[in-house]
């Protein structure tokens, strides 16, 4: 093994050597630097391999030929090798990234860079306190020197502020070191620790100064204005070094120095970290500048790591895993993002949409953003999960809330950024100049992150239980993205069929899961069929579609809460990107993500609360939660964000309406059932009929009823066809929630019937309307009209869809209504029930508006030649119609086994529904779908034949041959009665549809932004203010501590 001292020697040596070079030898200088850095990487990697392959013995390096008290010693252990390795890899890649910029500057850059790298290596390895001071200063000088190279006066100002601030901080460090020496007589950490630290008096002040100085180097909120300016001003390549490199060194330094203190720093570290995490993430919300935003995020992440450091004693054996996963995510993602920022060279995040020009860069950008936020299967997800669960086990619920709040705010601004990159306004004139050395480092870091994910997944406590096949398939799809869409579509459909076949035996005897699996898989396959109509590559669609379906299937398959949450997040992520693909869906996808994120974190907390006191992650720990009220409520609210209950519904209409034609049915007909499945799972585990959560269920019941009312009422007043359907989904999900809250056999049967029906008709309607919208290229219903002649198939599909939706016999919707009445009366929730039935009748209004405005009335000139929707839309529609017909004629085929399942299992033992052939009956009433269908069918045919006989000679006339008081219609646009069709209804009941929820969330939004915007004004930009912040910070921590 090469002695690690050579890292320092080589780096420093080459720096000096290069210093001797002339300017024109800069090429040579570059090669020499790369070689030196590569050597450093080699040494640290070899040591890391050495230690990971079982070696435990720590290498002590003695310089100056003397033992520690008399000379400085370095140490190389597992931790040191790991950290030097990541820093050296970062250094090597960072240098390659900066290579061209350095060449322009001559040799200076390389020299300073090598010195910086050397300083960071020493900081990690050294065991001498004064050495720490020296090399911290060296690192600062090198950083300032690198800043100096940029010819921008803002960068110079930032550099000066940085120097002043770091100077003051290091002064305190030096004073601390001085007094440390005065009291302990040594400067060596190990020596001090081996002596009896507690016996030494007066030393606590010295250690306080040392530690607070190191903490200040880590830029705690709010004493961090100087650092933010640096992040913003510096060359992104250098910012990457500061954010990932220097911060890594500093945090390891803190880790190393913490044992010095006899005081318990943990609460202070936790507090400092959390304040930094939450505070700087809140301030990030108001940021528009990309680099500065990354700075805020960086600081937030470091704060998070500080918290974890503070929690180290409590986390025990899990500490290393948690810390590592968070650290590695931050390290890779932040460096990668800064590097991408350097390629983009845009300040305002709005202008980042230029990234879309390069799909690789776009992919990496998304990858890093998601890594930062901690979505599965990215590394930090595992760490966060572990951390929250450990905290829950130790009842640190406040901490959980704070951490998740911080993560939420971080997710907020990162997703907004992501959205703007994906869908923001196109930059015309700018094109991306991409050089190989700029793109190589982020690519490598992406690969590292994938590898890290793999290892962390294996290392995590529950990771091995995950089913990773879909993930591999997603990765495969990413690699195959260059293929034409139809090949990929076939591939995905085949895969889903195979997966369904594989899955079937596993859940065959669980009707509940079987039904939802059927909805997810069958629905998925059907909606994917529509995708055949799209030509070209459809880049980036299929991986995320599969991701969504994988998530949904994961929910079904989940055996423990970790799998469940993993799948939940996967589904959210996939669907978010699918929604984001729509043309105008930027803000809607963002809203969706915010609510989903918030909901997911509530679920997270709920799971954590339930986990308390248990030792396994089994699903059924929910049934024995120690604080059932809290955990069930949180879980329910979390699921309700996905099912868009009243108050949490505002994301849904836009998201569903603006998504692509074949994505709308996916997210509406299918995805929403994910939330329903969550609720069902929760309610099942809550303990069925013996449930003691009466209040919760009662509230949920009312919530469901009100959601149904408001959703349907709002749908009535829509002019946008897809938005109308989306609001209708809100209403229908309200029914389902209401029926679920009954917690009775019939209630659940109702809910399941509704789920099946909603899947059938809403997928059908969204496919049909989506096809129409695709053809006519507008969402506005009043712009369409009279399309029945051009699109008879779509008309039939919509007709069947709305008859089912409205619950008119003989189609399947009536099954739901009938069960509903029985359930309501059995349960005794009469008024809620009446409200729900009222909303059911309101559904007629929008059903009529939908079919009338689009297919009937006056055809418009523009659409005289539109064609019927593609066959690929009609096939799934036909299948769904057949499904509806079968379910209508023989509801017993599905409802009977379901009822039996609900009755025979322990869920709901009383089964009031009995079947006699095809007739269902309860104590209250009876109903025979088959016979009704027969009677109505026969009657209808007879009457039709009769009328046809009577008016067989009828003259066919055209659109303007209508009675018009002796006049003729002016033009189709003014003759089509559609816009604001229900204005009279608005006059009567419009007060129920006031946008209170939107107003509330807008208020929350503006308050948050106001807080963020006014708080960030503490960073006045004046260097002296920053110094004052630092001094006050020290003072406050001191006063709190002593």
């Amino acid at each position, binding site marked *: 093994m090469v002695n690690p001292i050579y890292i320092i020697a080589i780096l420093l040596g080459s720096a000096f050597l290069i210093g001797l070079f002339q300017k024109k030898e800069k090429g040579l200088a570059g090669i020499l630097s790369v070689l030196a850095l590569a050597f450093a990487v080699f040494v640290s990697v070899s040591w890391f391999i050495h230690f990971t392959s079982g070696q435990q013995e720590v290498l002590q390096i003695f310089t100056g030929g003397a033992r520690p008290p008399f000379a400085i010693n370095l140490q190389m252990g597992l931790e040191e090798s790991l950290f030097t390795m990541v820093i050296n890899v970062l250094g090597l890649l960072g240098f390659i990234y900066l290579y061209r910029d350095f060449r322009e500057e001559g040799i200076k850059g390389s020299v300073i860079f090598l010195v910086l790298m050397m300083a960071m290596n020493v900081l990690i390895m050294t065991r001498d306190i004064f050495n720490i001071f020296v090399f911290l200063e060296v690192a600062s000088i090198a950083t300032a020197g690198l800043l100096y190279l940029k010819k921008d006066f803002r960068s110079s100002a930032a550099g000066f502020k940085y120097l002043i601030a770091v100077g003051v901080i290091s002064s305190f460090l030096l004073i601390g070191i001085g007094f440390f020496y005065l009291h302990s007589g040594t400067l060596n950490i190990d020596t001090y620790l081996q002596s009896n630290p507690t016996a030494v008096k007066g030393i606590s002040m010295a250690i306080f100064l040392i530690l607070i100085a190191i903490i200040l180097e880590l830029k705690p909120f709010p004493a961090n204005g100087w650092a933010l300016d640096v992040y913003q001003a510096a060359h992104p390549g250098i910012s990457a070094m500061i954010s990932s490199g220097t911060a890594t060194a500093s945090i390891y330094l803190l880790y190393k120095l913490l044992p010095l203190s006899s005081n318990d720093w943990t609460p202070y570290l936790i507090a400092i970290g959390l304040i930094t995490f939450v505070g700087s993430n809140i301030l990030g919300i108001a940021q528009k500048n990309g680099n500065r935003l990354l700075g805020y995020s960086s600081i937030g992440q470091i704060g998070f790591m500080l918290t974890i450091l503070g929690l180290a004693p409590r986390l025990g054996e899990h500490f290393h895993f948690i810390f590592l996963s968070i650290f590695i995510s931050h390290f890779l993602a932040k460096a990668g993002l800064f590097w991408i920022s350097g390629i983009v060279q845009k300040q305002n995040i709005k202008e980042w949409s230029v990234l879309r020009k390069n799909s690789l860069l776009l992919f990496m950008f998304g990858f890093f953003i998601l890594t930062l936020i901690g979505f599965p299967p990215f590394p930090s997800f595992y760490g966060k999960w572990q951390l929250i669960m450990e905290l829950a086990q130790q009842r640190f619920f406040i901490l959980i809330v704070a951490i998740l709040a911080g993560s939420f705010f971080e997710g907020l601004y990162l997703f907004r950024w992501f959205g703007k990159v994906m869908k923001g306004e196109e930059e015309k004139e700018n094109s991306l100049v991409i050089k190989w050395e700029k793109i190589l480092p982020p690519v490598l870091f992406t690969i590292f992150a994938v590898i890290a994910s793999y290892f962390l997944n294996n290392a995590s406590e529950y990771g091995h239980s995950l089913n990773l096949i879909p993930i591999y398939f997603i990765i495969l799809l990413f690699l195959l993205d260059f293929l034409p869409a139809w090949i990929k579509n076939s591939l995905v459909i085949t895969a889903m069929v195979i997966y369904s076949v594989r899955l079937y035996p596993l859940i065959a005897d669980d009707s509940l899961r079987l039904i939802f699996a059927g909805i997810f898989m069958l629905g998925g396959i059907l909606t994917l069929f529509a995708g055949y109509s799209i030509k070209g590559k459809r880049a980036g669609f299929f991986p995320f579609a599969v991701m969504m379906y994988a998530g949904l299937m994961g929910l079904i398959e989940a055996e423990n809460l970790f799998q469940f949450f993993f799948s939940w997040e996967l589904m959210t992520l996939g669907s978010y990107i699918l929604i984001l693909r729509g043309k105008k869906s930027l803000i809607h996808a963002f809203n969706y993500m915010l609510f989903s994120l918030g909901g997911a974190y509530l679920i997270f907390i709920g799971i954590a609360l339930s986990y308390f006191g248990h030792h396994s992650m089994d699903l059924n720990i929910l049934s024995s939660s120690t604080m059932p009220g809290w955990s069930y409520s949180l879980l329910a609210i979390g699921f309700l964000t996905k099912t868009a209950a009243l108050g949490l519904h505002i994301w849904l209409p836009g998201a569903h309406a603006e998504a692509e034609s074949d994505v709308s049915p996916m997210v509406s007909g299918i995805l929403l059932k994910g939330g329903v499945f969550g609720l069902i799972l929760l309610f099942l585990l809550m303990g069925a009929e013996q449930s003691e959560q009466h209040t919760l269920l009662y509230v949920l019941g009312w919530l469901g009823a009100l959601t149904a009312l408001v959703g349907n009422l709002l749908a009535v007043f829509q002019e946008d066809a897809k938005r109308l359907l989306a609001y209708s989904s809100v209403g229908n999900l309200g029914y389902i929630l209401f029926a679920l809250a009954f917690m009775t056999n019939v209630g659940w049967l109702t809910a399941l019937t509704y789920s099946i029906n909603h899947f059938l008709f809403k997928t059908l309607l969204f496919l049909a309307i989506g096809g129409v919208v695709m053809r006519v290229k507008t969402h506005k219903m009043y712009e369409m009209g009279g399309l029945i002649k051009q699109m008879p198939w779509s008309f039939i599909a919509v007709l069947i869809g709305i008859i089912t939706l409205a619950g008119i016999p003989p189609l399947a919707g009536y099954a739901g209504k009938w069960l509903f009445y029985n359930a309501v009366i059995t349960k005794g929730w009469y008024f809620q029930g*009446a409200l729900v039935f009222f909303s059911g009748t309101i559904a007629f209004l929008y059903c009529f508006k939908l079919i009338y405005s689009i297919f*009937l009335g006056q055809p418009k000139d523009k659409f005289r030649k539109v064609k019927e929707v593609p066959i690929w839309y009609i096939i799934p529609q036909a299948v769904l119609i057949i499904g509806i017909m079968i379910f209508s004629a023989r509801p017993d085929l599905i409802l009977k086994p379901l009822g039996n399942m609900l009755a025979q299992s322990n869920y709901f033992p009383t089964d009031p529904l009995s079947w006699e052939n095809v007739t269902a009956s309860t104590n*209250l*009433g009876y109903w025979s779908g088959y016979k009704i269908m027969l009677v109505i069918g026969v009657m209808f045919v007879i009457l039709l034949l009769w009328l*046809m006989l009577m008016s067989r000679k009828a003259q066919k006339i055209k659109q303007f041959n209508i009675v018009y008081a002796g006049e003729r219609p002016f033009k189709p646009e003014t003759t089509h009665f559609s816009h604001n069709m229900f204005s009279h209804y608005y006059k009567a009941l419009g007060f129920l549809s006031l946008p209170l929820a939107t107003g509330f969330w807008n208020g929350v939004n503006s308050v948050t932004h106001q807080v963020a915007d006014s708080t960030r004004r503490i960073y006045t930009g004046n260097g002296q203010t920053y110094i004052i912040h630092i001094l006050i910070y020290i003072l406050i921590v001191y006063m709190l501590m002593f």
Partner: protein
Amino acid sequence: MNIFLKILFVLLGLFIVLNWGLIMSGIIRKIIARVGMRRGIKVYQPYINLIKNYSLRSQLTHGVMFYLGPVFRLSGGVGIFLFMPLIYGSEYWSNFSFTGDLILIAYFMFFGMLGMALGAGEGGHPYSGIGVARGLAQFTAVEVPFTLAIIALAIQYKTLSISEIVAAQQGGIMHWTLFTNPLATIAAMLSFLGAMGHSPFNVVMAPQENPIGPPTEYHGTFLGVLQTNRAILHVVEAVLYMNLFFGGAGNWGVLILKSFLIYFWAVFVGMVFPRFRVDQSIPWLLKIPLVSGILAIVLLMIK
């Protein structure tokens, strides 16, 4: 029972109901005329109108759905008839009520409405759309008190089967829902006003300002079908209310008398009150009828 015999009785019942519907509307028109000190139409005038409409020589059609609209409408009317038990205790006159209960009828009413709305919609006339929009809007409010009344009945009789509800009301006039549950009856009978579409709830048709509402474009045979349906539907709806609130009927005579009186209630109110706009009728229906429906349920819950 033999299915053919059943069908025979169903057709016979349909015939009786259709004729009674036509005659009833003639009688009602006659009464209205006499109240207005007029001689009024001939009692058999509805028959003449029907014959005339069926015998028009030319017909127009706007398209398939225009054609299907009246079929849907008539299917709706006949369907409700088919699912309705007519005479209490008679297996012959209970039609196909074994296929479904009260809820089936309540929801099957929409079948005809929807078909009519679509047929009128294909006519392409804006007034049709306006009429349908008004009609549907008003109907949502009509349904609320009716739903509450149904729930009240279901609580009271612990069944949703119409036959059983009728059975529970046998044994004297004081057993009628009218007296055992007056509040529910009030709610239902007030919503009946809205369902019948007489003044003050006739803005849907609005014969003066929107020529005749949804059926603006319908004529000849189509109109004949609609009139046939109307004759059947008025009787059948009255029979529904009769079964639910007025003790049902033990024979055809009682059925005819009761259905006439119930239908006359709507006509009577219509004679006295002027027309509501939709935005007035909805709040009205959501005041007294709604409150009495809620009170009916509350009282039952307290018991």
